[in-house]
């Protein structure tokens, strides 16, 4: 698989480490009343869809950026790649 890195261009997926569902970007509020339950869901439950999956890839053998990749789990085809930092900023986060 080739991942089209937004800064570095097309890179072999073997340079990356897969980090799972991109829902992990949205960590629950640790002060919420039901924080414990939310963290169990966050840590252990997954949607695991057959079809488009939005996921995190870490460019470990490259520039160490985290990418948010949309990939179809039935074909391995990649339809979108963004920097995770851009995605987080787009959701109003500062870093």
């Amino acid at each position, binding site marked *: *698989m080739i991942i089209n890195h937004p800064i570095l261009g097309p890179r*072999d*997926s*073997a340079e990356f480490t*897969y980090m*799972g*569902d991109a829902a992990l970007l949205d960590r629950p509020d640790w002060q919420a009343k039901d924080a414990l*339950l939310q963290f*169990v*869901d966050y*840590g*252990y*439950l*997954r*949607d*695991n*869809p*057959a079809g488009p*999956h939005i*996921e995190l890839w870490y460019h470990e053998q490259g520039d160490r950026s985290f990418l948010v990749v949309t*990939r179809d*789990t*039935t*074909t*391995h085809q990649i339809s979108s790649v963004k920097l995770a930092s851009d995605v987080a900023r787009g959701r109003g986060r500062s870093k």
Partner: protein
Amino acid sequence: MRYSGLRVLKEALTGHKGWKPAWRDVAPQAHYDYIVIGGGGHGLATAYYLARNHGAKRVAVLEKGWIGGGNVGRNTTIVRSNYLLDGNEPFYEHSLKLWEGLEQDINYNAMISQRGILNLVHSDAQRDAFTRRGNAMILNGADADLLSTETIQKRYPFLNVNNARFPIKGGLAQYRGGTVRHDAVAWGYARAADQLGVDIIQNCEVTGFRIEGGKCLGVETNRGYIKGDKVASCVAGSSGRLMAKASMRLPIESHVLQAFVSEGLKPVLPGVITFGAGHFYCSQSDKGGLVFGGDLDGYNSYAQRGNLPVVEDVCEGAMAIFPMLGRVRLLRMWGGIMDMSMDGSPIIDHTHIESLYFNGGWCYGGFKATPASGWCYAHLLATDTPHEFATAFRFDRFAKGQMIDEKGMGNNPQLH
């Protein structure tokens, strides 16, 4: 019809006209006591033990394709019970004992071959870990033998014990481990279950559940609605996809694992050997092909096919310990979808929905578990209490911090 040597002789002399289909081809009935979804090894074993151990009468196995078309027909066929943790080892040892008596029990030649499995050790720390594991196995009634480098060299002269990076420092052997003809396991259980009245319904895909007031009443299929008093999901790599139809999220990700077969060779490899420094395991089939595999590709997949980096990695593992394989050609390779759980251990439990049960999360070690999985799942379905060997395989272990994490990898399914 009972199979026997005499029967084979008789059929040979009479033009093989007496053989009958090994199971009936039936249309689904409107209502069953038990509906088992998924005609893989685990689903078929579950149906068989429901009928055999618990006298269940109206049992159906619904399979979306043909039985044996899933992982039960795609794996590298290794069976063993060399686990460390209390939650696992008694279960897998029970499974190995069931394998030992399976052919007589189901009257089917599953080519169970206890040719032994050897896990190689490459460092002092690994020897300590394997010694501990061997002791845990012995405490649970399994067999284990720690071998020195000299013994290994004598028994397996083709191994490269002096690899500069990963010298072989010993090994942990389980002589009762080995291989089983995987397709025959599906066919044998199907035939035995069918003889006890179980309906095995192929080309019947479950497309949804009928759930009312928190209770599961039956399943929607491409062949119509089927009512079931108890509905048992048992679809391995498709678990996430199926349970989403009951609005359940699981502690499971689906990943692709590849397997490989070489061209046929004369007997070169006695038993199963695993490389302890990378991830590579290998045995030789009775036809002569070397059957081997390695790591998952490492990302969510339902594609049933993998990519090239893993092929390279697996072949490197092979060359590190078996330099003699350098000129052997690869014949075939394929992939299967693994239900990788968050701690690397399975789940056999009821769900929060009444009458709906779940079996899955087998990762890539589920073939060896087939008999015990069916045995314990049938027990849970029939009695509504977990079997004593499967009490740890619960859904709530993640919330309670009682993970069964053999490798200590945490909630990274692709690393288990």
